[in-house]
């Protein structure tokens, strides 16, 4: 009996350091956010003055302000568009990688890996140059093609700002999705597809009735990951704002928290938005984790 309980205790000891580190590194910030979101925590508190407990004031102020709702709606739409676009394009590319010859596939794979491995800041600078209004290659190309795009500023209009941001975010996320779905596709046995073809199934029917059901788990997991990652997008939006967008008209949740906290010094409000965002994320990832568990058992 003692050996049975010790054999159970040993693996627990193996995992406890990791659990503890995560608890401290991630549990502490969450606790801090929740507490701070109920306080008035401004510039003075940063320099040591005791924060004042204000209950739900931060939340009421945010929810009645209206701007928070705009930011939440924007973030959700942006996240849906980016995640949907990424998975559609990534899935298409995965199917393409199956269809082309091995050398072409390998070259595409390398291009995807290189794009994935580029530091975000680095690829952002190239993208900012591409859409730059004075010397960007996009305006240059469109003008060459006969449009009147000389000096067109893509970042001033919120809608075209988000279009540019979506293209960049999708470009950065497609490699991961394409490679993951392709890995899922390699599990589909060629014999089954061949048999279906002999039975007279068209390409579309094979895709619809054989390939898609088989890769559905991978696709749904990748889609959820993208939804969660795109909801918390920050760096791309921040750098595009720095490059010429108007922050107030282009804020998403991540940059809004940053603006409230680091910019305006209102840490209480920033913490309240963080808690709201955390709740949104948990609501989404809960489904993800559960579907993953079902998958395993």
């Amino acid at each position, binding site marked *: 009996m003692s050996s049975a309980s010790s054999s159970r205790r040993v693996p627990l000891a193996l995992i406890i350091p990791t659990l503890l*580190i995560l608890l401290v590194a991630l549990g502490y910030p969450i606790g801090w956010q929740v507490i701070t979101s109920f306080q008035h925590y401004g510039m003075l508190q940063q320099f040591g003055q005791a924060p004042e407990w204000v209950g739900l004031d931060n939340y009421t102020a945010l929810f009645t302000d209206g701007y928070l709702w705009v930011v939440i709606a924007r973030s959700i739409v942006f996240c849906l568009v980016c995640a949907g676009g990424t998975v559609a394009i990534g899935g298409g590319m995965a199917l393409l990688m199956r269809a082309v010859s091995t050398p072409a596939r390998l070259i595409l794979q390398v291009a995807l890996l290189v794009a994935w491995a580029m530091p975000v800041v680095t690829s952002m600078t190239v993208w900012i140059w591409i859409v730059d209004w004075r010397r960007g290659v996009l305006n240059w190309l469109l003008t060459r093609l006969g449009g009147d795009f000389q000096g067109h500023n893509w970042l001033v209009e919120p809608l075209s700002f988000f279009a540019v941001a979506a293209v960049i975010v999708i470009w950065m996320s497609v490699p991961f999705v394409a490679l993951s779905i392709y890995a899922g596709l390699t599990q589909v046995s060629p014999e089954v597809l061949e048999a279906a073809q002999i039975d007279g199934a068209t390409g579309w029917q094979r895709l619809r009735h054989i390939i898609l059901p088989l890769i559905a788990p991978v696709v749904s997991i990748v889609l959820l990951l993208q939804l969660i990652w795109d909801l918390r997008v920050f760096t791309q939006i921040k750098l595009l704002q720095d490059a010429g967008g108007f922050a107030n008209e282009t804020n998403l949740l991540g940059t809004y928290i940053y603006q409230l906290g680091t910019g305006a010094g209102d840490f209480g409000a920033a913490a309240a938005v963080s808690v709201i965002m955390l709740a949104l994320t948990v609501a989404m990832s809960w489904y993800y984790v559960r579907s993953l568990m079902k998958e395993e058992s």
Partner: protein
Amino acid sequence: MNGSSTTTRSSRSARGALTTLVTWVLVLLFFFPVFWMVLNGFKPESLASSVDPTFIFKPVTEGYQLAMDRGMAGYLQNSLTAAVIATIISVVLAIPAAYALSIRRVNNVENSLSFFISTRFMPLAAIVLPLFMILKTVGLLDNIYMLAVVYGAMNLPVTVWMMRSFFLEVPFEIIEAARVDGAGMFREIVRIVLPLVLPGVAAAALISFIFAWNEYFLALLLTSSSARTTPPFLGSFVDGRGQFLAVLSAAATIAALPVIIAGWAAQKQLVRGLSMGAIK
């Protein structure tokens, strides 16, 4: 009969040509920004920011020299320190944890597992303020070792999760045989399991390294001068007027080079590791 088989063949080859064409267009789309960055790094500043894009020019190393004059070597060294320590931390902690989540299972694996996975989704913006405040209080802001520890903790869930899926593939018979031979747990991990999952450990380590090497947001807020890493240094050239395009491209090329080489060399493991992390 003969005619119809010819048409299917020719339509098939037309479709083959089309898919190949699409593939090349995609390769170009994903490669162009990288290519353009490398090209710009070898241009003089006036040419890099000219209105008409230039493809043919006499290469200069002005940009690289300027980047080095701005102290890039120090930032690179900080990045290296942070990434190496973070990788060591997450790998050393993840190996026993992954073992306890796969081969010698802890009770309620599902609970610990969901905990690991859910920490992966923490919005960065929610972590960074409290982290900033506490580091400021204890005087560990702008400290490269602290940044390394933060990165190590951040990478931990991904590393554990990825390694676990590799550990699960170790045939149980091999482990059982080792146990029958009287191997203790430490021996079992080091001598039996680790050699088998080495490619997986390498992939996890590489991905952990790349995340830490490329991380921008935390580095921007938690460091200021002596511990500043390369990404915020690169970010400091982004000013919306594009005055430093050549320097920036040169510096970015240097920063991206190790990652691109590693990605190229370990392509197979990386693809497998990435998809393992997502699928299983």
